[in-house]
């Protein structure tokens, strides 16, 4: 079982190309408010995660996801 930090590390690396503002990413970095990802970019990012872990991330959990940490916890739950 992969632990929380490993999920975070994967998300950091997956966000590399979308980090237009060159932010120092942390679990508290907000995907939209801080990174400025558009809805299309969020969906592309989600798809990257889905394919990596071979899971589907339901749309209905996304309203609760603001930060990279929120997403890492949700992905971890889905991948258990």
């Amino acid at each position, binding site marked *: 079982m992969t632990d929380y930090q490993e999920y975070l590390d994967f998300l950091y690396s997956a966000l590399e190309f979308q980090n237009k503002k060159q932010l120092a990413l942390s679990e508290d970095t907000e995907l939209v408010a801080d990174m400025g990802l558009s809805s299309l970019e969020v969906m592309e990012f989600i798809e990257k995660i889905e394919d990596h872990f*071979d899971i*589907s991330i*339901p749309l209905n959990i996304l309203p609760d996801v603001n930060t990279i940490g929120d997403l890492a916890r949700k992905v971890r739950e889905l991948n258990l």
Partner: protein
Amino acid sequence: MLFDKFQTMADFQAELAEQHVKPFGAVTEKILSATEGVVEGRNVILAGTNNYLGLSFDPRCIEASREAASRWGTGTTGSRLANGSFTEHQALEKEIAEFYGVDHAIVFSTGYAATMGMCSTLAGPGDTILLDADSHASIYAGVKLSGADIIRFKHNNPEDLAKRLRRLGDRAGQALIIAEGIYSMLGDVAPLQEIAAVKREYGGYLFLDEAHSMGALGETGRGAAQAAGVEADVDFFAGTFSKSLGAIGGFCVSQHAELEAIRFCINAYIFTASSAPSIIASTRAALRIIQEEPQLRQQLWDNAHRLYDGLKALDLPVGPTASPVVAVEMEDRKATIECWKALMAAGVYVNLVIPPASPSTNFLLRNSISAAHTSEQIDTIIAAYSDLIATGLITPTSKAT
């Protein structure tokens, strides 16, 4: 602030007002026929009405409507579950079920209520819905209300659907898969043979919205599933009376007897007044006509090909195949609005579509064709687009940078 979120829209509306253009909610002052009207003070060819078979002015439909209003009054003033189920509603449910060759049908007051109501009710908390990413807003609204897990698959992509069903493991057999026959904005048809094959492999229930394909596709006009020969794989067919049938209302039909119990659980069916009998009567007449006059469907496709081929010959960015909906995709909002304005000035009304109503970040000049359009009218529409190129308002695909 409560109203802050509407500011962008208010600014956009103000921008349109400054340009003296009203693409959204343009007022039709007079309807001259199924394909002509006076819109915002101009005589125009109606090329954005979804009136695919041109039945809104069929004398048989009008007479049926008139007679029903005289006999039943102007409205039912109540829900189907209270005082609003007249023999007209019951007869239409029987006839729409027979048309699809199934035993169960529910008639709704609008197409939106039909798809939203069914999608919000069929699946619930603990269930999983897989929907095509380009699904209609009513489907998105419904699945959001359902409380189920909502998973999107890539538009018209059976491989992506299969991948996502595989990921569900044992839950795949209980999943609700949602697709449409013809997609409303670009007019593209779902690859239903492949989607049905995926469903047969992994299981699940298939809900198919035939809103834009009923009357347009299939040997007897039942839609895209009939055309693809996969009706047996569809668990629920939904559709509307407001397009090919020229009225308003919606339906869901199914071979599953459970539909009769589901009826009593759909808020969008229970907590709204039923359709006026005059509407039901014209719908029944139109349903008879589309069965008796298959030549209407042939005429629709002849016209669709004429428009599509004409716009394609102009090298405009239209979809890959001809369809009753032909959309010209553009990247720039201002340029699209200018084109819409010029088309109106040339006497052609089409739909201006902006994101998120369009399936991508592109803007659309959406044309819908009718069996009632004449060849001359279609040529006028094509000529109006040709003028857009001549005046530099739109760039042909091959010259786009």
